[in-house]
């Protein structure tokens, strides 16, 4: 009997190529005669372009072509935005700047040369005359009618205004004993996939086919959009996402550079390659977050929440990328957190600024929601003098599932949850009661210890198609080859998450073969049926379900065939461990696979072959949840923040590979930690990007990261047959509030109730200094 592998933390099948340096990311694909592209980008945040002089660049030996915005921006369609909000104002986003530049990094010209050194030299020779214009940087001030206007045609900096939520918020706040208010910042973050973006394009004039290798999370969606931008037939455009070195949402997009390379390869008749540098990546790849908001939460004296309002200014940047305007709407969906709140309202004012576009970065709008509701719960606890755990418990729903989904005042029905279960487990791991005693003792001894708790819920497995701009289903084809090797084609596009392994685990158990008999193919539009891609913690819950369902179809057919081979009624056949049995007789799946292809002994009405395709449409999102607890100690002399313990209990439903789940949670928590304590995209008052390199943008390093103690509870999702929920974003959603809360808690006795991220030692030190001065 072969051992079942679903639920086991087996080693990844993708790793051998990665640990030996044998994988192929875009820049590792070398085609003869390739031209290398280098962009000239705006050095001003807002300026009129008076002149672009490319003569010297063109004359540089080795340069084959130079394009400016004027040359090509009307030949390629606009950079697409897939999101639509009622009455939204959408600027015409061309692939390069023509008369004006809108942010530092806005592409103005591009050089194609025989090698990248020459291209860089030539790009440096391009002279741009600018006439500087006043800049708009603050998303709140941008809305002010007195502020300079970025897009003259639109006439104001307001992209849209939107009100969301249910219940009578005015009445709910009136009914409250107390209302707590707080202004909250979510600073801009840079996703920093370690591999930046990169594109290689090759046109085959004979076949009139175009192949585009690009570092993306959404190969099919990108193919559709790029074919529209170019007016090039979609079925002649092959888009390949090769090995992709991280995305975190930054590659859930369609970028100007992708279309420009495709266009250039056709014009120049040679392969062209553009590899993004890190500085370019910070300037010209989407940023995440970028909100400033005002919370108002009403509560009864016993801690019961009556209503919650969030008025928020969302920073769009100067243009829309693929999902830019949609991100704040995700914030609105999750404002109820894991609490019963009768009335919720969000009012969004989305504004243009002279900065790079914001868009989906790990969590995409949901970390903002979790952060504000979790901060709000802590503020309520502080206001009422309650314990932060007690106030949460007070507002939890009873455990719920398929029979009684949890309806919240944002319009959603949460699929299943047991918030008490995860909380209890985490409290036990942390020894919470004792922790509070220790904290008191430590405080008396002059030590600053803080404990932060976050009970989060997230929305993932994106998602039902009506709720997503481009469809929320996912596809899978499973083929059993004549030799009984199994080929799985998935529309998901993993780039580190490990679905080559986990999807093989699903197939191995269903078919009674080994993981090594299975291979997972993804990311090539010429090979894989149309799919949606990897984002929104959807690949396993939606894409994995498609694989599972295709396997069921396949097994049904194989069972019919086996019955025919055995000369029995299919109803009497059982399938176990790779063997079809009826009475005393059996055939193996290997024999069935061969028979299906030789096709000499098939039932009269059965097609040859063993292949099944499924397009799975989920009926609902899934709602993973959990509790994170963080313990910090602050150095009273320096303000340095040390994380003493980090405990995370996550519930992502059924788990296919716990090793991968841990990896996802670790990575998410550390990105959260970066947001809470270190990371911030900083533009100065002229709109210059100050944090434009890894020297200035603080990605967490190993020594800054605590040991994470993980455990989980398992509440299956009723939304899909495997009961999985998704885990890619859990850490980046659940952890930030816990870390911030811990630092605030360490200073609570000094009257501190809230601190804005990133909380730097300097900030803490100033508070401590002020307090000392006050005490003296």
């Amino acid at each position, binding site marked *: 009997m072969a051992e079942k592998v679903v639920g086991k933390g087996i080693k990844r099948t993708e*790793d051998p*190529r990665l640990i030996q340096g044998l994988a192929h990311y875009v820049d590792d694909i070398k085609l003869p005669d390739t031209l290398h592209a280098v962009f000239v980008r705006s050095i001003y945040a807002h300026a009129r372009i008076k002149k672009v002089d490319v003569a010297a660049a063109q004359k540089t030996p080795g340069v084959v072509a130079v394009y400016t915005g004027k040359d090509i921006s009307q030949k390629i369609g606009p950079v697409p935005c897939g999101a639509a909000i009622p009455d939204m104002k959408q600027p015409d986003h061309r692939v390069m700047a023509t008369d004006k530049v809108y942010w530092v990094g806005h592409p103005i010209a591009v050089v194609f040369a025989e090698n990248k*050194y020459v291209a860089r030299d030539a790009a440096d020779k391009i002279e741009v005359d600018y006439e500087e214009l006043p800049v708009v940087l603050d998303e709140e001030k941008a809305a002010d009618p007195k502020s300079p206007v970025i897009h003259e045609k639109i006439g104001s900096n307001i992209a849209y205004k939107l009100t969301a939520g249910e219940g009578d918020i005015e009445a709910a706040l009136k009914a409250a004993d107390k209302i707590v208010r707080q202004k909250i910042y979510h600073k801009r973050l840079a996703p920093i996939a*370690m591999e930046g973006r990169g594109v290689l394009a090759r046109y085959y004039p004979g076949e009139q086919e175009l192949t585009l290798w690009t570092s993306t999370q959404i190969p099919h969606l990108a193919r559709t959009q790029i074919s529209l931008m170019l007016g090039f037939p979609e079925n002649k455009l092959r888009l390949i996402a090769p090995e992709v*070195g*991280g995305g975190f949402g930054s590659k859930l997009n369609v970028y100007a550079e992708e279309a420009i390379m495709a266009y250039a390869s056709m014009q120049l008749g040679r392969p062209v390659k553009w590899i993004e540098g890190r500085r370019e990546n910070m300037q010209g790849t989407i940023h995440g977050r970028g909100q400033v908001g005002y919370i108002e939460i009403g509560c009864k004296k016993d801690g019961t929440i009556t209503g919650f309002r969030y008025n928020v200014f969302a920073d769009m940047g100067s243009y829309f990328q693929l999902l830019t305007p949609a991100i704040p709407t995700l914030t609105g969906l999750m404002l109820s957190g894991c609490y019963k709140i009768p009335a919720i309202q969000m009012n969004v004012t989305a504004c243009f600024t002279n900065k790079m576009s914001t868009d989906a970065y790990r969590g995409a709008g949901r970390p903002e929601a979790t952060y504000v509701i979790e901060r709000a719960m802590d503020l309520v606890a502080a206001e009422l003098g309650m314990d932060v755990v007690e106030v949460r418990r007070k507002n939890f729903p009873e455990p719920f599932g398929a029979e009684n989904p949890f309806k919240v005042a944002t319009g959603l029905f949460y699929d299943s949850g047991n918030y008490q279960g995860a909380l209890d487990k985490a409290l036990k791991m942390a020894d919470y009661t004792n922790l509070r005693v220790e904290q008191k003792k430590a405080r008396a001894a002059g030590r600053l210890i803080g404990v932060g708790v976050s009970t989060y819920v997230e929305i993932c497995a994106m998602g039902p198609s009506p709720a997503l701009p481009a469809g929320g289903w996912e596809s899978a084809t499973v083929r059993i080859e004549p030799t009984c090797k199994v080929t799985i084609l998935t529309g998901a596009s993993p780039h580190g998450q490990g679905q080559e392994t986990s999807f093989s685990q699903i197939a191995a158990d269903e078919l009674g073969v080994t993981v090594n008999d299975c291979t997972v193919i993804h990311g090539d539009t010429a090979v894989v049926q149309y799919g949606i891609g990897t984002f929104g913690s959807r690949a396993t819950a939606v894409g994995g379900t498609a694989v599972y369902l295709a396997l069921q179809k396949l097994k049904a057919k194989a069972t019919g065939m086996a019955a025919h081979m055995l000369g029995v009624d299919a109803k009497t056949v059982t399938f176990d461990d790779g063997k079809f049995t009826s009475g005393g007789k059996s055939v193996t799946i290997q024999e069935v696979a061969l028979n299906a292809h030789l096709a000499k002994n098939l039932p009269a009405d059965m097609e040859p072959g063993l292949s099944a395709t499924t397009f799975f449409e989920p009926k609902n999102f899934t709602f993973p949840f959990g509790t994170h607890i963080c313990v910090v100690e602050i150095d009273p002399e320096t303000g340095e923040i040390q994380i003493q313990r980090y405990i995370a209990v996550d519930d992502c439903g059924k788990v296919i590979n716990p090793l*991968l789940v841990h*990896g996802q949670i670790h990575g998410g928590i550390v990105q959260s930690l970066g947001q809470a304590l270190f990371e911030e995209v900083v533009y100065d008052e002229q709109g210059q990007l100050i944090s434009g390199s890894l020297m200035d943008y603080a990605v967490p*390093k190993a020594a800054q990261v605590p040991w*994470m103690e993980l455990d989980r509870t398992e509440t299956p999702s009723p939304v899909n047959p495997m009961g999985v929920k998704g885990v890619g974003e859990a850490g980046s959603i659940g952890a930030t509030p816990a870390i911030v809360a811990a630092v605030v808690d360490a200073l609570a006795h000094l009257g501190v109730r809230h601190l804005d991220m990133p909380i730097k030692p300097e900030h803490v030190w100033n508070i401590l200094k002020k307090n000392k001065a006050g005490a003296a």
Partner: protein
Amino acid sequence: MKKISVTVNGTTHQSEIEPRLLLVHYLRDVLGLTGTHVGCETSLCGACTVMVDGQAVKSCTVLAAQADGSTVTTIEGLAAGGTLHPVQQAFWEHHGLQCGYCTPGMIMATAQILQRNPDPSEEEIRHGIEGNLCRCTGYQHIVQAVQCAAKKMKSQPAPANR
């Protein structure tokens, strides 16, 4: 143009190069050894880490000309005779990688750490890999992989580094 002779993963290459050519571009573009990655080109991320004469260096900050006469080991040269290096094995076993982009540099840095200190503490490991950024893993599985590799290397002698 400048003539250089460099031994990479056991093979000696005679090349004529531009004096400004970076070692990482020499390895990737001239020799086709694309396992060494570029994550920042400013010596901040460690993705380009290789061994030059037994020392881990960030090859984006070294000129190919400076490696003239040197012996270089890249990630492609770490597995000796088809057997994974203990550090590679440990990264695989402990899921010390996700997207894999930082991994070659991380593995080369780890090999160096363990050469210098066969029995590092968690803190020493974390400080040892501080020059290598990973955006995916949160480092915990990497730390575990390094601990595991240390154990492996004590029980099985490391394959001779070329």
